[in-house]
């Protein structure tokens, strides 16, 4: 019997398992409706534009909707506050159809050529960088020290990896130290990767066979640093689990 049927055949109050560790209980319909109506009557809850959630946004519409929200949230620079901010940007950005492609120049961050970047008009509190990577090209892993980033892929596919230092951050550390890889992710159109200055604040990219294109929405929340620390990694992890590497900074 399918789980759907199983659930439908339950008596009120009876339970069944539908997923690992998940047991459902059939509940009284009228009680559920009452709860829903209660939530909809929450004071200040506007419904006028909610029906538009399925629409794709133009870049301009995206900016118009997201900037007031971003301004309201950008002040909390704690780990949780940045998560909140970046994920909120993401919830708007994934509804965007595409973005204007500006003139691009070499990113200056590649290991070799084939990586390009250009800014497109945005507005406080963030800037929007449009990037393109040729097939197989690489953006060297580098630390974000003063601006967090919400990356969204628009075309192709790239692998993005995030790292962070073990222990306290020290972008001036001399010699070797240890970092761990906090994330390795394939970004395809519509998918996002977050650089929070409190975690996973180093990111690097490698384009797949079709190359890739996307946006970095960057928000400066700390004092600017003059140089960008690039991460030199040992070829193999020194501890396979949890992915610890020997590393050093270069500029």
């Amino acid at each position, binding site marked *: 019997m399918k789980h759907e049927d199983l659930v439908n055949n339950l008596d009120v109050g009876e339970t069944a398992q539908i997923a690992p560790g998940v047991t459902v209980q059939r509940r009284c319909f009228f009680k559920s409706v009452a709860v829903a109506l209660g939530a909809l009557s929450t004071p200040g809850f506007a419904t006028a534009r909610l029906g538009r959630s399925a629409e794709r946004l133009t870049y301009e519409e995206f900016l118009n909707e997201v900037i007031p929200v971003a301004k309201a949230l950008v002040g909390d620079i704690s780990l949780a506050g940045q998560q909140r901010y970046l994920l909120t940007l993401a919830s708007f950005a994934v509804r965007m159809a595409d973005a204007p492609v500006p003139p691009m120049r070499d990113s200056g961050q590649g290991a070799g050529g084939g990586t390009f970047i250009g800014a497109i008009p945005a507005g406080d509190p963030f800037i929007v960088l449009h990037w393109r990577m040729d097939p197989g090209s690489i953006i060297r892993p580098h630390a974000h020290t003063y601006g967090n980033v919400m990356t969204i892929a628009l075309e192709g596919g790239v692998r993005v990896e995030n790292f962070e230092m073990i222990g306290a951050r020290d972008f001036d550390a001399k010699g070797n130290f240890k970092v761990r890889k906090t994330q390795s992710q394939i970004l395809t159109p*519509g998918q996002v990767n977050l650089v929070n200055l409190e975690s996973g604040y180093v990111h690097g990219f490698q384009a797949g066979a079709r190359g890739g294109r996307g946006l970095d929405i960057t928000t400066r929340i700390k004092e600017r640093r003059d140089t960008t620390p690039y991460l030199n990694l040992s070829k193999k992890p020194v501890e396979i689990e949890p992915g610890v590497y020997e590393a050093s900074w270069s500029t």
Partner: protein
Amino acid sequence: MKTIDEITPGFSETRRRVLGVPASIAAAFILERAGVGLANEPAQERSAMKESNTDGRLDWAGFLKQCEPVARELHKDSSAAGQDAYLHWVASNVARARTTDIPRAKVGRFGALEPSIRFGVSYRGEPFFIVEWQLEPGAFLPPHCHPNASVCTLGLEGEARIRNFEIHGEAPAFTSRQTFLVRETHNEIIGPGRINTLSAKRDNIHTFQAGKNGARGIDISTYHGPDVGFSFIDLAKTPREPERLIFEAAWKGQSV
């Protein structure tokens, strides 16, 4: 007034001070502070600006009040982008929830796995329900799929490695033991405040490996289509295509 500033490596930004903030936004802020909303303002915008606590964290009631009404509307769009908008909205709200206020579940041991894994439902709402999970040090929850569902996983204590996979090509019915291919799409560490998401359209298979101190967290789960069951997966230890991280796999049913 104009200032030029480098905001990211190699990029300078010209900041223009706009004296005339658009009237609608200014009005929204004023009305928001007065507890009155604009009917034409996007719901995500209005809800995101609310603060129920002085430290910016939401208690459980505040989280539900802020998250659920918008989530219910975003949930209506089950496209890939719609599910992602929904998931990121839920994630952005739970990221700000005070973790000590998240309801604890009455957990029970799952299967005969050693080290043990415990699950329990801590909240049932609309459109999502929440499952608390507890992994003993070194515990391993085998890969499994969540057809027609999305999951927003939030780490609360300890650390675990989460890996996500997508079916590469076609997969047979759950009853088949025929092999098929999956591609590893995410491999990340989850810990307090860190979030991993999967939707019905991407990263739909996940597996957990607890670190040496074990881990605890929650899965905020939502159906975006009919419940058609799920299956655990036998996954090859080494990839068939290491460069693309493509593995052989087979369904193994609901027992571990």
